[in-house]
């Protein structure tokens, strides 16, 4: 069973933080298929956040296909994220770092880099689907 924590100063909304923490746990192998996520009650008793936030996070994970809610029982993991292709991460990471450096030299700030990246990523994803 994993435990959540909340960083109130990170600027990331709470429910997203929970989503990210679940995804990280999946990636690191701390959660496996069939494991149960903590109940909403246990989560809020631990970190004093709104239950709706937890529900929203779990719904998002369910939408992404990572977990499934079984009414009256709990929420369970249905898919892992680690896919053993960590070997290819290294060169890809380096490519990205080079691109970031270029963007900074061109005068873009963090927000613009992020905006540009998200925008390009989304249109590439759309093209991929089509």
């Amino acid at each position, binding site marked *: 069973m994993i435990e959540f924590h*909340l960083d*109130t*100063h990170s*600027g990331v*909304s*709470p429910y997203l933080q929970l989503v990210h923490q679940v995804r990280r746990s999946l990636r690191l192998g701390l959660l496996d298929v069939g494991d149960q996520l903590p109940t*909403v*009650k246990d989560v*809020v*008793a*631990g*970190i*004093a*956040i*709104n*239950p*709706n*936030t*937890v529900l929203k996070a779990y719904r998002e994970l369910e939408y992404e296909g990572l977990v499934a809610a079984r009414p009256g029982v709990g929420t369970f993991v249905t898919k892992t994220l680690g896919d053993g292709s960590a070997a290819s991460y290294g060169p890809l990471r380096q490519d990205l770092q080079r691109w970031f450096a270029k963007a900074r030299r061109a005068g873009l*700030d963090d*927000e613009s880099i992020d905006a540009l990246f998200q925008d390009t990523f989304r249109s590439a994803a759309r093209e991929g689907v089509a």
Partner: protein
Amino acid sequence: MTSVVKAVGLGKRYGRRWALSDCTLDIPSGHVAGLVGPNGAGKTTLMQLVVGLLAPTTGAIEVLGTRPPASPAELARVGFVAQETPTYTALSVADHLRLGAHLNPTWDAALADRRIDRLGLDPRQRAGKLSGGQRAQLALTLAIAKRPELLILDEPVASLDPLARREFLQDLMESVAEHGLTVVLSSHLVADLERVCDYLIVLAAARVQLTGIVDDLLASHHRLTGPRRDPRRLPSDEEIIQASHTDRQSTFLVRTDAPILDPAWTVEHVGLEDLVLAYMGQATDTDRGRRPALAVRR
């Protein structure tokens, strides 16, 4: 979506002073609503109007579909913890539970005992000898064990140390998750509200300045930074909440649902604290001479 509290033009006057004026609210059920505002803004007055301790001077208020004064059945549906969590100093913890059992037909004795047990309170201890945090927990137990649909808490953690505050909120959230309560709690500490509230009401200068679901509010407010510009030249669908200028730069806090397309602006999200402060600042601009005494904790 049902409303738990509906107020139209609600006002309360004491002598010549309006503690609350022209309040219109529609708090939906199923949320934890945070009522935030400086001291003297009317938070306690509003809450006491909701639970029927006060009668309005003007306007109308409806709680869970009925108007106060309430019958016993209606009283049973609302739980209230007043500021300073009043408890009978001479009565023991167990006596307080007996009080709850005798005065509330919907009393859940098992729940009350479980809570007291889990909180580690000694049933035979007199309430006067408890710490502030323990008294707050006792008062909350009394309010929750009557199994209300709506819970109203007036500054429940104001006089608690950080640990007691965190424990109180953890406990409260657990009860909300378990029983599906709707909660309205007031505070002048925005940080606590940020954690637990998903509905916001900003009260300043005896008026409601802002209400809404927190996520929606955060999504529709933006901070625009850019070269100095006259506010009147912004698009009309961008409502300006706050504006500040230097000789070269303007910063606006705007509210809009439309995307902001002007590339001259740097668009940023606004945090909840800044949002609340902006609306309270707006209130003081119209109500000169009153400074907000909101505590910002970091």
